C-alpha cells in the first residue's frame, strides 16, 4: 500500500542506485512510509516517556478519533494533488456537505441514511463544479478553488443563516461516540476502509490508473486516449465526497452540524489537508499517490498536536512547535534516506 505511481521517472528518490536491484523490503525501507512509521514510533516513545498517560485507553481513543478525521481530510486533498492540482475548498465543501446532511435530518426530517447520501451528493457535486470550472477555464486549480472556497462557504452561511442543525439522528451521533474493545473508534476503522478502497482504485482500477497517468504527464495521457479533463473532474468530485465524509464524522462526533466546524471559510482544514499527503509522499506535481503515506502522515500530525498538548506546551505555541517538529520530521526522514543510499545499505 506504499507509493503508487505511473511514471517512475517522476520519483527520483525511489530509483535504485547504481543499478542495484532492490527487494520489496528494501524498497519499503527507503520509502516515506517507513520513515513516517519510524517517526511515529519515536515520538510515541517521547510522549509516553513525558507522560505515561499518553498510552492510556482514553488518550488512544481520542487520538484515533481525531486522526480519523484528519486522515480523511488528507485523502480529500490527496486525490486532487495526484492530478497536479490543489483543492483549497476542501473545508468549505466538507462543511457544506455536513450542513446539507444536518438540514436533511432536521428540517426535511429525512432518515439518516438518505440524509447522509444527500450530503455526500452535495459534496460530490460541489467538487465536480470545481473540476468543471477548472477544466473549462484552463486556470490553475489554486485560483479556482480559492474563489469557490469563499463562494461555497458564503452561500452556506446565507442559506443556513449561520444556524447549527442540532436534531441529528441518535444512530448518527452514536457512531461518533462508540468504542470498540474499549479503545478503537469506529471512525478510524471507517477511514481505514476508505483508504483501502482508494488503494484498490489507484492500484487495480482502470480509472485510478488513468488518473495517475493524467497527473504524471497530461499531454502523453491525452495522446494515449485518456480524457484528462474528465479525470480532473472525477478527482474533484471524489475530493468533495471525501471532504463530506470528514464533515459527517465531525457531525457524528459533536452531535451537531455547525457552520464553524472547519473555521472561517473552512480554512482550518488546510493544514492537515496538505500535511498528510505531502508528508506521506504524494507528489505535488502529480502522478504519484501514497494512500498509506497519507494515512501515516495524518496520524503523525494528529499525534504531534496531541503530544504537544499533553506536554502542556502553551496553547498559543502549539502551531509554532508543530511547524518546527514537522520540519524536523521531514529533515530526519531526508537524512535517513540519504544515509541509507550513501552507505548502500539498500
Amino acid at each position, binding site marked *: 500500500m506504499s507509493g503508487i505511481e505511473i511514471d517512475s521517472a517522476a520519483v527520483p528518490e525511489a530509483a535504485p542506485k547504481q543499478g542495484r536491484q532492490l527487494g520489496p523490503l528494501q524498497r519499503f525501507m527507503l520509502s516515506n512510509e517507513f520513515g513516517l512509521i519510524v517517526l511515529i514510533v519515536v515520538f510515541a516513545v517521547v510522549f509516553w516517556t513525558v507522560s505515561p498517560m499518553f498510552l492510556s485507553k482514553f*488518550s488512544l481513543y481520542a487520538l484515533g478519533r*481525531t486522526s480519523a478525521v484528519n486522515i480523511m481530510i488528507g485523502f480529500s486533498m490527496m486525490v486532487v494533488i495526484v492530478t497536479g492540482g490543489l483543492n483549497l475548498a476542501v473545508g468549505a465543501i466538507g462543511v457544506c456537505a455536513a450542513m446539507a446532511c444536518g438540514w436533511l435530518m432536521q428540517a426535511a426530517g429525512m432518515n439518516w441514511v438518505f440524509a447522509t447520501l444527500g450530503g455526500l451528493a452535495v459534496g460530490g457535486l460541489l467538487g465536480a463544479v470545481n473540476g468543471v470550472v477548472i477544466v473549462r477555464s484552463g486556470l490553475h486549480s489554486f485560483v479556482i478553488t480559492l474563489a469557490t472556497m469563499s463562494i461555497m462557504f458564503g452561500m452556506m452561511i446565507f442559506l443556513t443563516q449561520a444556524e447549527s442543525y*442540532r436534531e441529528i439522528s441518535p444512530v448518527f451521533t452514536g457512531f461518533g*461516540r462508540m468504542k470498540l474493545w474499549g479503545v478503537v473508534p469506529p471512525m478510524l476503522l471507517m477511514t481505514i476502509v476508505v483508504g483501502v478502497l482508494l488503494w484498490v482504485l489507484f492500484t487495480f482500477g482502470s480509472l485510478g490508473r488513468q488518473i495517475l497517468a493524467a497527473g504524471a504527464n497530461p499531454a502523453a495521457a491525452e495522446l494515449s486516449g485518456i480524457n484528462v479533463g474528465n479525470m480532473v473532474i472525477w478527482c474533484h468530485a471524489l475530493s468533495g465526497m471525501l471532504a463530506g465524509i470528514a464533515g459527517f464524522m465531525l457531525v457524528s*462526533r459533536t*452531535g451537531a452540524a*455547525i457552520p*464553524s466546524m472547519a473555521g472561517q471559510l473552512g480554512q482550518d482544514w488546510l493544514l492537515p489537508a496538505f500535511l498528510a499527503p505531502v508528508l506521506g509522499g504524494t507528489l505535488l506535481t502529480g502522478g504519484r499517490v501514497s494512500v498509506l503515506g497519507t494515512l501515516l502522515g495524518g496520524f503523525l500530525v494528529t499525534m504531534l498536536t496531541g503530544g504537544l*498538548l499533553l506536554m502542556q506546551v502553551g496553547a498559543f505555541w502549539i502551531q509554532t512547535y508543530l511547524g518546527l517538529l514537522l520540519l524536523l520530521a521531514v529533515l530526519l526522514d531526508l537524512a535517513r534516506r540519504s544515509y541509507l543510499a550513501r552507505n548502500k545499505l539498500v
Partner: protein
Amino acid sequence: MIDIKKIATAGAVVAGLTMAANTAMADSSTRVALVPGGPHPYFAAWEQAGKDAAKDFGLGSADYKVPQKWELSLQNQMLESLVTQGYNAFLVFPGDPVGTVAIADELAATGAPVMALAGCLKDPSQAVFCMGTDTGNSAYLGTKELLKVLPKGAKIAHFTGFLVDPNTQLRIDAVEKAAKEGGAEVIQVIADIDAPEPAEEKINAYLAAHAGEVDGLITTAWVPAVVASNALRKIGDKRIKMVGIDHDEVVLGAIKDGFVHGTMLQNPYGQGYLGSYAADRLRSGCTVKKDAPFKSIALTDKFIDSGTVFAGADAVDNYVGSMQKITKDIFADFEGKYLNCG
C-alpha cells in the same frame, strides 16, 4: 483592559470571608481545568478565580486553559488532552450548546464533575449544573436603567454578540421587551460584532451615519461595549446615553467621564471561584440535591445565576466591591442550597 489586581483583591476578600464558613476538609487531589471556548477578555478573571480557589480550598490545582482559537474541535481536543494530563474536574464554556454535550458526557464518564460556566449546555447532558449570567435578565435590567435617563419615546440602538451564541437572541428579545414596556423604540440591532474588527467597522459606520437619530445605546457584549464607549468619547457628544456591559477599563473610564451612563456587571470571577469550589466538594463526596432551587432557562433546567448588577458613575469605583458582594452572597448558602454533603 482588566484590572487583575482588583479582581485578585476581591477574591482574597471573598475568600477571607468565606473560608471561615468552610469547615469541610478539601480534597487535595482535585485538579480543576477552567476551559473557555477560546480567547476572550471576559474569561480572563477565571485565571485568578482558579488560583484563589485552589489556595483557599486546598485544591491540587485549578488552572485556566485557553484553546488558541474559537473552534469546537480544538476545544474538544484540549479537553481530551486535559483528561490525559490528570485533570479530574472540568468547568467549561461550551463552544456549542449541543456540540459540546458529547465531550462533556465523555468527561463525566471518566468520573470527573463537569459544569458549564458562563454559557449552558442543552439538556440532557451530564453537566451537574450551569452557572452563568441570566443574560436575558441582565439585558432587560440594563435597558430599564438606560430608559431612566432617556425621554419618553426615545430611539435606541442595540449592539450585541454572535448570533450563533444562543444568549444573543435572548438579549435581543429582552431589550425589545424592556423598550416596549418603557415606551421606547429599538431602531437598530447590530449583532455578530463581539470581535474588534467587525465591532469597530459596524459601530463606527452606524454612528457616523445615524448618531443624530439615536438617543440611547445598549450594548450586551464585551467588545461592542468597549468600541461604543470609545466611539462616544470620540464624538464627544454626551447627548447619546449608553449602558454597557462588563468591567473593561475603557467602559469604566467612559462612565467616570460621563460618556457612558453605566454598565451591567457580570461575575466571571465568581463563576470560576464558586465553580472550582463546587467541583472540589463534588469530588469529596457531595452530591447535587434533587430539590436544588435551580432556575430554568431555554437550554437547561439546572441553571444557577452568577449574578448581575448595574454600576453607574457613583458605583464604578467600587465595582470590585459589587462583584465581591455577589460572590459572597452566592457562596454563603451555596452548599446548603445545592449540595448534599451529609
